[in-house]
């Protein structure tokens, strides 16, 4: 009994939303909109659940004096402090002068942008240590990378306007052809996996994660 109901919910909600896409009639579209509005709220709740999980795991590790537990304390202070200040300011939490916005600018914004900027260093060292041109395919990759890297910055245009032109052509024709092949292949994969998920044929292990930056 516990196993069938979730599969039934997925089946009904999934098929209904699939049909709802093609039917503008209010008899269907009104409930279609309702279901999607509900899931917006439930997805919001899964984010809160995720953070609650993080809180539980770190509290456990801290009390059990697991490895690196002092750093877990830092994490918990950051988590509970930010949450408390945020809720204390009510709907003004994101006003330009609020303490929550100060935390956002000082801690979240600064560290988040620095984390990704580390990659500039690693790309340079990997270019030297791990960019082996040992086949014709790798050579093609390297040539395209050169044209793009030099063509997309002002220095390329200064050296010779043909470089940015070559970069544009390379992006609009060969790159487009291959990317479109990948897009179509991926689309077939998503549609196949999607319908298998809705019909309960796919084996899944858990809930849906949030978005992310590649």
């Amino acid at each position, binding site marked *: 009994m516990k196993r069938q109901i979730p599969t039934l919910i997925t089946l009904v909600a999934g098929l209904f939303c699939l049909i709802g896409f093609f039917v503008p009639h209010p008899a269907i579209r009104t409930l279609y909109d309702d279901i999607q509005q509900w899931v917006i709220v439930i997805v919001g709740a899964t984010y809160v659940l995720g953070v609650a999980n993080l809180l539980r795991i770190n509290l456990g590790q801290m009390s059990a004096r697991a490895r690196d537990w002092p750093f877990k304390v830092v994490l918990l202070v950051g988590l509970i402090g930010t949450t408390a200040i945020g809720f204390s300011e009510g709907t003004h939490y994101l006003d*330009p002068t609020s303490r929550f916005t100060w935390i956002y600018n000082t801690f979240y914004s600064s560290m988040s942008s620095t984390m990704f900027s580390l990659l500039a260093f690693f790309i340079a060292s990997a270019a030297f240590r*791990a960019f*082996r041109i040992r086949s014709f395919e790798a050579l093609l990759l390297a040539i395209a990378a050169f044209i793009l890297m030099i063509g997309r910055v002002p220095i390329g245009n200064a050296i010779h306007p043909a470089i940015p032109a070559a970069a*544009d052509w390379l992006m609009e024709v060969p790159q487009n052809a291959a990317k479109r092949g990948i897009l179509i292949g991926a689309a077939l994969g998503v549609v196949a996996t999607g319908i298998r998920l809705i019909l309960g044929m796919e084996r899944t292990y858990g809930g849906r994660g949030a978005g992310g930056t590649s």
Partner: protein
Amino acid sequence: MSPGLSSLKQLDRRWIFLAVALLVVIPLAVGIHIAPVAPSPRTRGFYDAIEKVPSGSTVLLAGDYDPSTVAENYPMHLAAARHLMSRDVKIIGLALYPGGPPLTDQVLRLAAAEYGKKEGIDYVNLGYKAGNELVMSQMGSSIPRTFPVDRRGVPVDQIPVMHGVQNYANFPLLVSISAGYPGTKEWVQQVVSRYHLPMVAGVTAVSAPEYYPYLQTGQLRGLLGGMAGGAEYEVLVKHPALATRGMDAQSLAHVFIALMILLGNLAFLGEDRSRRR
């Protein structure tokens, strides 16, 4: 193989890190001007699409990025807000990235100060909403129902710029500033393909190649790719700022990395001839 090249193999990568740091810090501190920024056709498409928006109409500006890609997305976002406001176009801003709302706030406030626009009358920040593509799909049915209040908690029916705004039919253009998921791809799939809303996008360089097929089919009318795209757009908007200033360091770093690839292959030339792919 000459000893000089083989000793390169043991080069500690932290020397490379130091070189990258210097190549970025020096041009920024000194501000040398290596080469002018030349706008590309894609950037002109972005500019022209906004030029075609009738003044007085309202445009949707989605700032779907967070601080991790501020260096690439923020300059485009600010330049687009300035461009729209300079043409007296009202802006409805939102962000489907959790880290987005404060950035949308800063952009709209900064541009509004320069063009004398007032929050609520000329622009509004609807803030964040969980649900990724679901939010985009539901805005097609009803924006007031999906965003009952703006970022400040003010009900939208009390906000003048939101009067008469029901769904995508009210907008002549959608401007998407995007870093990943959810972003430009989802706006194209869920909105442009379904409601035929003209759209332009300013995206991070990592994701730019993926959107060229959309440019070719006309699903996207214009595309800004990375900081270079932002700089080209800043030149067209005649407001060179953040992105333009970074171009010198960008050029030098790219040349350096290209050299690293060449040097790397020379140094390891003999080494793995045996292990073909």
